[in-house]
């Protein structure tokens, strides 16, 4: 498969499948909006903007994975770690919407499919893993770094498999030399490499933030309360 850029353009998927995914994406986003609204306070609103901007910027860096094959980062895991699953999914969706409208990157009719792969599947898988890993790993910057890395790799591969599924359901052309299994295998292979690159960036970013501003990491929420300071001193 040459097309590893996950921004599916118009005409790759047939009408019904595009429409079904459009509906799936709309319903899921509506749910994310209702959950995300509660999260989006004075701290998270600017963070959500920055996470979206950061994902936007790193998605512009297309880097070669194999000769003739290039891919880009997806950012779902980093979003889930920093702003949580609901706002995280919204951030990635905003990136995809703006890319489709402003940079003609990814077709508007494939927006539902693109949102499903990168914003929904990517963020959901990442957040499940994060929730799991943070239960076993220590809640230290190192633990968080490992979590970010693993979640990124798995989420990227999961997003690529979601694309394979869409192609199997509604690809406008059947392929003969490639069985579905082979396509899935190739996609997984290249996306493990992309995932490793993404995992490194996500890990370093999240670790830097966790070191200086642990209050900003959604995944560490509830660990820190504002300290009470009185004339007598700092209360524990």
């Amino acid at each position, binding site marked *: 498969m040459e097309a590893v850029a996950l921004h599916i353009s118009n005409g790759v998927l047939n009408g019904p499948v595009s429409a079904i995914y459009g509906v799936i994406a709309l319903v899921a986003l509506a749910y994310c909006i209702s959950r*995300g609204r509660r999260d989006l306070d004075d701290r998270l609103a600017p963070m959500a903007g920055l996470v979206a901007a950061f994902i936007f910027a790193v998605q512009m860096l297309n880097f070669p994975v194999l000769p003739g094959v290039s891919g880009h980062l997806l950012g779902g895991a980093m979003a889930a770690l920093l702003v949580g699953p609901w706002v995280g999914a919204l951030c990635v969706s905003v990136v995809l919407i703006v890319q489709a409208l402003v940079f003609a990157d990814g077709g508007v009719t494939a927006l539902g499919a693109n949102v499903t792969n990168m914003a929904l599947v990517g963020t959901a898988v990442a957040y499940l893993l994060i929730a799991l890993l943070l239960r076993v790993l220590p809640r230290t910057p190192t633990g968080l770094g490992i979590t970010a890395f693993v979640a990124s790799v798995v989420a990227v591969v999961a997003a690529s498999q979601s694309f394979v599924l869409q192609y199997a359901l509604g690809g406008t052309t059947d392929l003969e030399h490639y069985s579905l299994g082979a396509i899935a295998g190739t996609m997984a292979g290249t996306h493990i490499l992309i995932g490793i690159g993404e995992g490194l960036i996500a890990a370093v970013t999240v670790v830097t933030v966790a070191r200086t501003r642990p209050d900003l990491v959604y995944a560490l929420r509830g660990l820190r309360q504002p300290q009470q300071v009185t004339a007598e001193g700092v209360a524990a």
Partner: protein
Amino acid sequence: MKGLYLDRDTPLHRLPPEVKIAAMVSATVIVVVTPREALWAFAGYAVLVAAVAAIGRVPAGWLARRSLVELPFVLLAFALPFLAAGDKVTFLGLEVSRDGLYGGFNILAKGTLGVLLSLILAATTTTRDLIVGLDRLRCPQIITQIATFMLRYLAVLGGEARRMRIARISRGDDPRFLWQLRGFATGVGALFLRAFERGERVYLAMVARGYAGRMPAAWLATGAATRNQWLAAATVPVAAAAIAGTAVILG
């Protein structure tokens, strides 16, 4: 952030953003649902797109260069005739799959037309207006809010990266590449944090001036679309639908 906006003064530029978005999306949907065998419908669309581009004074060369984002899918389109299943036909002296040939054409034509329509929208509408348009199309506020901040933060990221560069070169450092300092990664982390803290202060300053989630631009920008403007913009999807309809009936 400017995006792909081309600063001109044309009827297309003056059209309110919400009608342009609606027209672009509906025209794209019509293109995508057109049966791929209706070859000449695509020729009709191409003429339509060229006409719209001409009204917006969007140069053809610019469109050609910018549509390279579609490249991976073009490669897929050219590969499909050789990879796809089904009967074989001879095309330009090569034995290829008929289904693959159609499939390749399908992706190429629909993909290209879609990209061109998006590019025309991007060339005639500023990013800020696009958000105003989304807001007027009843896009949930949380989405437009994140989008506004995203555009704002792209500028902050750029600004902070520039400041960091000046800080370094003026103290005797000689970077060939911005993030060479302590490896790409630490640079990214530091930039992220710095941009966040700047953006956080900016956000708090906005809140201090009464910001509550909606940019005044959404209601200040010169009036929402009039009926006539909706009608004018509707000509594009309507023309596309006419082409599609004719193609289906005749084909």
